């Protein structure tokens, strides 16, 4: 606990220090980065020690604010969520310091490091807070700090818009949370989380209302459909390491909130599981479809966050199903898979966003249609990006597969053992996961293939260069973690055990049983994957021996007889995604811009597609417009005529007199 407090103190002080020394970019950078890294390191030690010992550490002191108490606690669940926070804070700080070393950022380093450190500190407080007021304050500071980070380059119109959308959605989400916490507090008698813990019995029929409020409130931060609209706006607008931090861990605080809520409102029902899985499925599928339609790498990645949050929801849904039906193996696999995916997604999504940062840095564009062939020019970045891409598709042997496998396994267990009604959610979960998996492969072959493979499609891309070491090594660390978690998969249930026990208090024996079962399965999988790797190595060796001494020619790509292919003739991102998108044209509209070549000697023609967010355009924007139009209709009230104003007074007086004296 003391380490966490120390970490908070260091982050805050370093942030303020960095702001005070903003006139000297070097000092600011050093302070900000140093504070974030050392704070993260200390905190990491603290979190790991709690994870290892399994004994919660708490601290409680009074706080002179109405209903507030300064109580914080580090239990298994908090510690688990803190792991990625500290990991990414440290890495993003290292990366960011280098990323922002360009002169154009010099003037805003101070505020950047202030808010960066505040964001880190507030995320930690959100996760360890045990009082609603403290939680909400940290929650809002987190939102505001990230808002200012997103709008770091606020001169651009698109960044302003993104910041605005983000600010509004986070605030509306928080408003729902106000309602949620107050309602929960009014049932349990206090705004301390301790009292929520025992509120389960008192709540009764309002539990479902509370559950829905939590879903909306926390879901907005997590980015579930239909309240995800800020994600694809904010992530592209922010500097890459900020996107990594936000997408990697900040949105996970929403998941943290939902898991906490599930602890408070025990006795979930099958309907809840169905809700979670429904939301998860829709978020996952819509997220990946919209990702497929994007040609801006960071937007694409942002939509993948929506998708992965959907997968996490599927896992949680299976876990809830297990709780509702009293099937421990489901609980263990569902919660286990969902929570592990939280960690995994933090790692590979951060990896990919840092990769996007390097692409922007090296090739000066994030538009897929202007890239190509970067793997040759940026081998480190490209390879690490590939690792991230394979991991996010949930392909073996990397970490994404482990968590997805657990969710699959849980859902199949449900299909196997539950009655028809209870099996439906799990069937939906499996089908959604399968569809998401297939589409994710399509999407990331597109992203990786178009950016890093083939030939450069623009001048910038052909002149791209690899990034500095400080921008590569964080990626290497993350990629290594992807592999490591994949290989050490059998250990993951051990790590998750205290967390699962906390989320769903089952008899320890039952958990151990299920755990042992999963561990063996995972061990076999790792074995099979090693076999696979062995086979691949064998084939590589065979090919090498076959080819030694034979003719090996380097040539141009076979051009089907056409003599002068250019890089512009390659398949583009838009054309790659077109067949899939056409199938779902009802959901994902593709406004096209098309200039047809004309005349006998046709000159330039052009074709491009862009995909706005369907939910934003079809639901939120019209809703906002309607509210605005309705409200504007009352503008005549203030006409400027004093006669009318006094008439209002007279009418008010007379109406009140008649009404009240009747």
């Amino acid at each position, binding site marked *: 606990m003391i380490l966490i407090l120390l970490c908070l103190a260091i982050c805050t002080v370093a942030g303020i220090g960095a702001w005070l020394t903003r006139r000297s970019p070097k000092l600011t950078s050093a302070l900000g980065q140093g504070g974030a890294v050392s704070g993260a390191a200390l905190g990491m030690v603290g979190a790991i020690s709690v994870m290892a010992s399994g004994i919660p550490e708490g601290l409680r002191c009074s706080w002179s604010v109405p209903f507030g108490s300064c109580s914080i606690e580090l239990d298994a669940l908090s510690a688990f969520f803190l792991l990625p926070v500290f990991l990414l804070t440290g890495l993003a700080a290292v990366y960011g310091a280098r990323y922002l070393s360009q002169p154009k950022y010099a003037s805003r380093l101070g505020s950047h490091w202030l808010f960066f450190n505040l964001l880190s500190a507030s995320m930690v407080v959100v996760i360890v807070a045990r009082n609603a007021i403290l939680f909400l304050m940290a929650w809002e500071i987190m939102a505001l700090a990230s808002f200012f980070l997103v709008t770091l380059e606020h001169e651009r119109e698109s960044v302003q818009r993104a910041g605005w959308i983000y600010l509004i959605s986070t605030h509306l989400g928080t408003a729902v949370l106000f309602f949620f916490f107050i309602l929960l507090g009014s049932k349990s008698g206090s705004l301390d989380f301790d009292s929520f813990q025992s509120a389960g019995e008192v709540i009764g029929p309002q539990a479902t209302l509370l559950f829905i409020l939590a879903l909306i409130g926390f879901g907005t931060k997590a980015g579930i459909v239909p309240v995800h609209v800020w994600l694809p706006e904010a992530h592209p607008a922010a500097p890459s390491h900020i996107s990594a931090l936000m997408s990697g861990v900040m949105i996970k605080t929403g998941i943290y909130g939902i898991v906490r809520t599930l602890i408070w409102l025990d006795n979930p029902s099958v309907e809840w599981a169905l809700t979670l899985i429904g939301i998860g499925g829709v978020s996952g599928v819509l997220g990946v479809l919209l990702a497929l339609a994007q040609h801006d790498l960071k937007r694409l990645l942002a939509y993948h966050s929506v998708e992965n949050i959907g997968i996490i929801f599927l896992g949680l849904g299976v876990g809830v199903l297990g709780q509702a039906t009293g099937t421990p193996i489901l609980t263990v696999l569902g919660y286990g898979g969902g929570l592990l995916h939280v960690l995994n997604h933090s790692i590979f999504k951060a990896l990919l966003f840092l990769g996007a940062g390097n692409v922007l840095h090296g090739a000066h564009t994030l538009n897929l249609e202007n890239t190509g062939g970067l793997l040759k020019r940026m081998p480190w970045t490209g390879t690490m990006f590939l690792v991230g891409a394979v991991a996010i598709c949930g392909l073996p042997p990397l970490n994404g597969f482990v968590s997805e496998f657990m969710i699959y396994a849980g859902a199949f267990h449900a299909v196997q053992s539950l009655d028809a009604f209870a099996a439906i959610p799990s069937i939906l979960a499996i089908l959604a996961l399968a569809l998401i998996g297939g589409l994710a492969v399509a999407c990331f072959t597109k992203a990786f293939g178009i950016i890093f493979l083939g030939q450069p499609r623009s001048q910038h891309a052909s002149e791209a260069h690899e990034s500095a070491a400080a921008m590569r090594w964080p990626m290497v660390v993350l990629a290594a973690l992807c592999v490591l978690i994949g290989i050490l998969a059998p250990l993951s249930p051990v790590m998750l055990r205290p967390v699962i026990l906390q989320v769903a208090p089952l008899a320890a024996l039952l958990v151990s049983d299920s755990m042992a079962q999963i561990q063996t399965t995972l061990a076999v999988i790792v074995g099979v994957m090693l076999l696979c790797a062995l086979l691949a190595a064998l084939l590589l060796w065979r090919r090498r021996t076959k080819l030694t001494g034979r003719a090996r020619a380097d040539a141009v790509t076979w051009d089907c007889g056409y003599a002068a292919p250019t890089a512009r003739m390659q398949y583009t991102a838009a054309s790659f995604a077109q067949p899939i998108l056409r199938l779902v044209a009802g959901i994902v509209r593709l406004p096209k811009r098309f200039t047809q070549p004309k005349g006998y000697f046709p000159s330039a023609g052009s074709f491009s597609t862009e995909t706005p967010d369907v939910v934003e355009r079809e639901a939120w924007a019209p809703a906002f417009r309607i509210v605005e139009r309705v409200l504007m209709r009352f503008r005549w009230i*203030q*006409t400027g005529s*004093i006669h009318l104003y006094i*008439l209002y*007074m*007279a009418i008010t007086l007379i109406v009140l007199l008649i009404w009240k*004296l009747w």
Partner: protein
Amino acid sequence: MQDLLFVLLILTGFVFLGSGRMQFGIRTVALQGILLGLIPLLGNLQDLWARLTALAVLSLAIKGMVLPYFLTRAMHKSKALHEDNPFVGFTASMVVGIICLGGSFWIASRLPFIDSSQPKMAVAVSLFIVLVGFFVIISRRKALSQVLGYLVMENGVYIFGVAFAVDVPWLVELGVLLDVFVAVFVMGIVIFHISKSFDHIDTDQLSSLTG
């Protein structure tokens, strides 16, 4: 005896509603001031006689003389001699006045008498005068008319005060008088400025601040 005064006051209200000439309006208001100064003297509160007399004289002086004088000056300065084109015509105003009178009596009937010694018509009449003031402010364009309307309203309120002779202490009564005086004074100054910078004192054209 008091009832006679009340009837007269109702009449002044109607006269005020039906007239468009400023000078006439100012005189009506002055007359009201004088009438309401007389009310307490005709009541049956002998023990407060000295104080009431002093107050009556003072209000007579201010409402009946100083303010009318001041307003007449403002009228000449701003050259607003006649309310040309009110939002509600003078005849229609009278009709509204009748409705107001009915409403006032209704409201008064909802407020039961606490004490039989209280003047029976006071509530209704004062409410009526207040409503007349309100209506004039709403329906007339000239700033000066609005000030007059405000004064009528004040008179209405004041009628109630003196009729019940609730012993609002001396200091407060003075304060009330002073406040009304200063209010009208400040309004006069503003009217002066308005006529200077706008060339008119039609307040419906003072409507650039909207939304």
